[in-house]
């Protein structure tokens, strides 16, 4: 029992918000309860910070350590702020990067967060550097090139994950002709510690799941942030889709198989935290033909499963299919589907096999649901150990896929398909915040919303769930019932994340604001052309009046 108790305690944040996902268990859950269901309607802005780096979405999860907040903008300007007063302590600007290959993901503006540890503030850049600043001064301590953007068509937008004396970072580029990887560097001096390629090379186990040389440009980029279990000394990461996305004849050697195709794309992997060696994998979308990835956050928790306390992980991919695995072994324990509208599979068997696959066909345009934008986008879910629920922002969007069979060109977009999004018929709401019990796979409640929800969830010990919508509303729901308790118009759409922290016993809720004009945010706006969701780059921080000191 001791082990699971430890894990349960380790999943919550307290005064600080130290990691991208709150803690390395990625719950985005705060144990603070000064703000709760009884008083949340009294929240008022405590301070507001405008980054001045107006480009598009401020999407990073802020990090708070000892009363100082660290925030990064889409173009990698970094700020240290007094977390109680909003006053700027220091400011760092990463120089504007050189161009990557045109039209690839490397051209987009975005940065989802930084990491703080060992006196360093560490972040990735659009031109693939990992950079460490001195935490006190904001002066650069080291930078290291992770790859050549001009060649790979890749970039880093994910927050790095600190694992003991190392910092592990994944990259984008899995929609280009690129071979994804995770790389670990020594946090003190930036030296390479290990690299793990998502796609095994010749002679390595798993390479046989690729046709010919297709492994070289097979995608799989792990483009978000993983989790870490110190007891098992394992790091967990979701990997991206196989490339090319919508056409598989050049990459799949055996179309009769239904498991372990194009390893280790669209999988959850467990790696040894010290060496980066693969311990186990579970492929969620074998032969991913829908750009569903499996790159999202991995929530580590300990729960009673069929009468037995188990160390589990809960992992949702873009399809909305959410897997529950034993995190010691990778054993499949169950899955549930959060999307209401889906046609890409008919279902999942008891042992986790996808059945009734509906695949894009070359030369035909087909309607697929959900879309490559995801039943959930990259923004994170949240888990409250008090309610036992996983809180998810779910979107109901479809797409028309027209695939092609182009050959790869290193670093160039290699999706082999166009996939304009469309709204499913016969609905008047296209998203919902859900509360799911990951063990029973049952939905406890669902809060519908007219447009899309593309901001991360935050849950707290005050039994409040926070998130924001594209119209600019930052709102609170009752974690047990889904009842809307409070809302505040922040002035710009929400495409980032909220965190909670405390300074001098006063609890704060901080949210980034500013709509994304490209990729999924822009695509969603295209679905609702009469809307005018506002961009911006502002952090808004709330607290209860008079709760200070």
């Amino acid at each position, binding site marked *: 029992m001791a082990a699971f108790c430890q894990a349960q305690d380790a999943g919550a944040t307290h005064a600080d918000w130290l990691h991208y996902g709150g803690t390395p268990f990625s719950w985005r859950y705060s144990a603070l309860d000064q703000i709760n269901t009884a008083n949340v309607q009294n929240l008022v802005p405590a301070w507001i910070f405008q980054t001045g780096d107006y480009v598009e979405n401020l999407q990073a999860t802020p990090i708070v350590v000892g009363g100082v907040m660290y925030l990064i903008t889409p173009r990698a300007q970094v700020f240290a702020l007094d977390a109680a007063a909003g006053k700027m302590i220091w400011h760092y600007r990463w120089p504007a990067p050189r161009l990557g290959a045109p039209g690839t993901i490397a051209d987009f503006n975005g940065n989802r967060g930084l990491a703080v540890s060992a006196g360093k503030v560490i972040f990735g850049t659009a031109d693939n550097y990992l950079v460490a600043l001195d935490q006190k001064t904001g002066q650069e301590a080291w930078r290291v090139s992770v790859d050549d953007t001009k060649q790979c068509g890749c970039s880093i937008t994910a927050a790095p994950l600190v694992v003991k004396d190392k910092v592990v970072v994944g990259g984008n580029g899995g929609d280009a002709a690129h071979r994804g990887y995770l790389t670990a560097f020594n946090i003190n001096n930036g030296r390479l510690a290990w690299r793990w390629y998502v796609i095994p090379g010749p002679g390595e186990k798993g390479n046989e799941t690729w046709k010919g040389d297709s492994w070289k440009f097979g995608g799989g980029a792990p483009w978000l942030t993983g989790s870490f279990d110190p007891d098992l000394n394992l790091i967990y990461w979701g990997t991206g889709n196989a490339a090319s996305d919508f056409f598989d004849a050049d990459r799949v050697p055996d179309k009769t198989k239904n498991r372990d195709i194009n390893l280790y794309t669209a999988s959850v992997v467990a790696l040894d935290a010290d060496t980066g060696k693969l311990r186990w994998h579970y492929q969620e979308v074998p032969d991913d033909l829908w750009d569903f990835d499996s790159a999202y956050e991995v929530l580590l928790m300990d729960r009673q499963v069929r009468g037995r306390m188990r160390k589990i992980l809960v992992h949702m991919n873009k399809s909305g299919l959410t897997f529950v695995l034993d995190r010691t072994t990778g054993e499949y324990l169950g899955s549930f589907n959060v999307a209401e509208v889906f046609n890409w599979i008919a279902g999942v068997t008891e042992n986790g096999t996808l059945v009734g696959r509906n695949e894009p066909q070359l030369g035909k345009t087909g309607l697929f649901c959900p879309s490559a934008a995801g039943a959930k986008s990259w923004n994170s879910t949240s888990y409250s150990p008090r309610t036992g629920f996983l809180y998810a922002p779910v979107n109901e969007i479809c797409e028309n896929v027209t695939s092609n069979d182009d050959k790869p060109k290193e670093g160039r977009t290699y999706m082999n398909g166009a996939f304009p999004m469309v709204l499913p018929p016969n609905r008047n709401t296209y998203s919902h915040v859900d509360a799911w019990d990951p063990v029973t796979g049952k939905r406890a409640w669902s809060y519908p919303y007219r447009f899309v929800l593309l901001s991360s969830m935050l849950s707290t010990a005050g039994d409040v769930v926070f998130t924001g919508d594209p119209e600019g509303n930052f709102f609170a729901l009752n974690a047990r019932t889904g009842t809307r308790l409070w809302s505040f118009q922040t002035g710009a759409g929400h495409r980032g994340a909220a965190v909670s922290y405390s300074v001098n016993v006063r609890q704060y809720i901080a949210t980034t604001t500013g709509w*994304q004009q490209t990729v999924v945010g822009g695509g969603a706006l295209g679905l609702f052309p009469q809307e005018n969701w506002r961009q911006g780059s502002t952090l808004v921080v709330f607290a209860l009046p008079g709760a200070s000191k």
Partner: protein
Amino acid sequence: MTLVVLLLAAAVLPAQTVQDVVRHGEDVFAKTCASGYCHAAKGAVAGGAPRLAARGFSQEYIANTVARGIAGTAMPAFGENLPPADMVAVIAYVATLNGIDRPSLPARLGAPAPAAAPLSPEATRGRELFSDATRGFGRCSTCHEVNGIGIPVSTAIAKIPADPAALKALTTPGVSSATIDGETMPILMIARRAQSVSFYDLTSVSPVLRTVAPASVQTRDGSNWRHASAIASYSETDLAAILAYLRAVTR
């Protein structure tokens, strides 16, 4: 405008009709511009980028935008990245979406290709090896930038060694040693300032650009670092091909 004129003048297409160019442009557009994330097929609205059809754009505006991008947005500058023939074609295609039925094409349409000497088969292989991603960080382009590919840790290659043996034996006078907290490492000094010292730590690849307080580091000439160990992933034949490539592109 200068850029665009140069661009159009430099573009050389095989003998084609305007229709062929526009058709090629439609293909370039579909594959480069019209993914679900940006523009949509035929310039319609669907992705995050604006509609391009029937906007009343002039061909000059289109050419400028494609070449230079739009600062502060996701519209990249394709000027340096798309082959000239593709540039001309995609500009012509978007022009037709804006009611310009006969977009103007470069005067030299149909003239022979310019005399950029083709690489020999060996040099072509050398170019691939130079930045061969399957070698991870153990590739030349981890530290050298040639023809726009690679990370310029090293300064531009000034003199190309005669053969693989000379490449391996290369003495690298720029590399010195630094000692921090009792640890000595090979470095490439970048800048000494009053407040800070910046150097590449060559202990591991990829080299780490470190910035430290002057008082925290002692430096001395010479090091135990050898170029030969940085290129250990390549065979003699590989190195010969890489040298052939370097000779071809720096001539």
